[in-house]
């Protein structure tokens, strides 16, 4: 009952003058550690991230804020295998979770984030003129520590940058890249062998511009 009331209070908002919303836009770079990802590319997974957060009034301590977060990240990496196969990895991930943020000084906040989500990985392998493609979805879990440096830090509006270091766990995504069929002709029944399971997990760093209002 208490939780329900709390949620309703968050959704309805309050008449408080403090910033309740946060939007963050930036980039991330994830060092994929799994051998499956290293097989596909030597590069890190890099891309853009956009996030939205809503302040939760849990009434803990004056300096500690809690936020519900949601995020969308798009990443990509390219590589080669055996000097002859070029690879292209594209990811799209959505996540939701919570963030705690502690005010050290007026312009400096530290915090942590825990997220759960889904990630879609699309793998393209090219060999000469041929192109093989497959995609799949997997689960993600992310934990990160953040440092917020604010240029503007008024009660109603804040603007700054967020530096995050964290780790993302992903479930294995099974892929079986295949060539696109020629739809104009009747094709033989095809059985595509699995390339194996791709693990996109690894530690990451992100730099975002955040605004709270």
């Amino acid at each position: 009952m208490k939780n329900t009331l709390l949620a309703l209070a968050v959704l309805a908002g309050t008449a408080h003058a403090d910033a309740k919303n946060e939007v963050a836009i930036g980039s991330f770079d994830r060092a994929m550690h799994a051998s499956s990802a290293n097989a596909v590319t030597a590069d890190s997974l890099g891309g853009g991230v956009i996030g939205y957060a809503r302040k939760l009034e849990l009434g803990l301590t004056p300096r500690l804020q809690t936020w519900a977060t949601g995020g969308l990240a798009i990443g990509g990496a390219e590589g080669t295998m055996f000097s002859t196969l070029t690879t292209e990895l594209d990811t799209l991930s959505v996540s939701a979770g919570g963030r705690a943020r502690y005010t050290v000084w007026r312009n400096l906040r530290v915090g942590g984030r825990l997220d759960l989500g889904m990630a879609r990985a699309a793998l393209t392998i090219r060999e000469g003129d041929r192109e093989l493609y497959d995609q799949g979805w997997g689960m993600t879990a992310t934990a990160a520590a953040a440092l917020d440096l604010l240029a503007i830090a008024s009660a109603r509006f804040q603007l700054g940058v967020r530096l995050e270091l964290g780790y993302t766990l992903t479930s294995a995504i099974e892929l079986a890249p295949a060539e696109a069929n020629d739809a104009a002709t009747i094709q033989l029944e095809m059985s595509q062998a699995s390339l194996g399971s791709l693990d996109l997990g690894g530690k990451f760093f992100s730099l975002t511009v955040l605004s709270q209002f």
Partner: protein
Amino acid sequence: MRITNLIVLATLSQTAACVWDWEDDRSIKWDRERAILGPVAMKTNVAYIDSGLDRVTLLDLAEDTTRITTKSIGRRAIHAVPSNDRHKLFVITRGEEAIHHGEIDQDPKFWVIDTEARDASPVAYEIGSPFDRVAVAPDNSIAIAYFSAAGPDAAGFFRNPNELAVIDLTEPPSESNPTLKTIRSFGSVPEGITLSPPMTVPGTGAARTFAFILSSNNLTVLDATNPDRREISIRLDLGGPPVVPKEVVFAPSSASAYVRSDNARDVLQVILEQAEQAAPGANDYRPVLAELGAGGGPTDIAVYDDATGKRFVLAATPNTKEIVLIDADTAQFRSVPIADPIDRILLFPADVDGTGVPKKALFASIAAKQKRVHVLDLEHITDPLSQVGLRPIALDQAVRDVVPVPGRDLAMLVHDDNRTVLGLLDMDTESTSPMLGLGKLDSYDFSPDGTHLIGATPSISRVGFVALDNLHPTDFRLDDPPSRVLSTQNGKIFVDHGDPLGHATIIPSTEAARGDATVLAGFLTINLLDSEP
């Protein structure tokens, strides 16, 4: 806090993150050169050897659903051959030298992969040197790894081209197996090795395998069952052009071999006899040589036993414009004049195991591109009073190749360099039937029962069939151009499309409809992402 301070702090933080062990530790395995050896047709399997992933991929076509298995082998496979019964696959891996991080020190190895035993692990024999050729005994008891004339690569410091590794395949690897041996040389290097079937030298006990090592001006005989014993070298040169042994045919029941050499006058018969008073550890046999009077530099030979078990050698000698039939026991011979420079002899019926009694011989002139072949009756040819039945068969076009059809009294004649014009010669009726192809017959095979000729060429996305009963041609439309066509012993047709990731069409039989066939893709990279470096 000023904006500039924020930028400085952000830069410092990013630098700290980069220092935080950002390396991916990608294995060097993924950047290695990769070459695919195969496909190699085994009994019901098709094997591919992957030099980049260090594994053998086996496609088992025994059942309706193709089963894919992979077996790990050593680094950098360079050569692979199947056993004579096609149950086992023999692979030589070059090994690796640990120069860069992620590389390992691994010596060259000889691998035995049992393709019929699905769960059996490959067995590795340490061969010490990066040999790039293998000779296997017909009974699969012994293999000899050796260097080709060119050698495998330029790596290393010294290379001994006369070194051999004699591997006893009936025994597990050990310090004494394989046996490394350097044969005596008179300035030449081995150009080929032929291993005999088990032969019993009279008076010496059990049957054993002998290796005949062919090199320019030399024939070396090695007791491969007892490789520690010294080899016996036989000089072949006569002071003129180099005599290069090219072909060895064995007569195991009489412990003898027949050797045909370029620039030799006759067929050399090597009879292995018991050596008297052999010292312990020394050879208990000695080769006795006999020149069978071909008399004119044989260009091809064939050996057969007649219905009474008597052994004959059939030799073509273009220099004297003759075919010579030699009684291997008495060296008596009968010459048959023939104008064409014959360089190909085929015996019919051509039993797969070579145990049948041939009734006819087919002679062709491949190098001279003659527009005829000749058929010789063998049944009464040894009777000196009988008429020699040598009949020419006129053809419309020159013969570029002749191939026996397994299990049938048929010979396939190839008439042009592009292999677009073929002929099938019926040895019973001695009639030919021309076949026209729309593309070059780059790859072909026969169905195991000899009912169909199966052909393919990369420029046409089809597999062609010719029913050899009535020569009715049919074809099978493929989705992609073929690279190679194979027929397995259970009658399935395997069409490889030459894809480094693996791409093949499997047709259940020569009569199968398109709906019965399946395409299998990606099998050469199966579970690639799951493999640990």
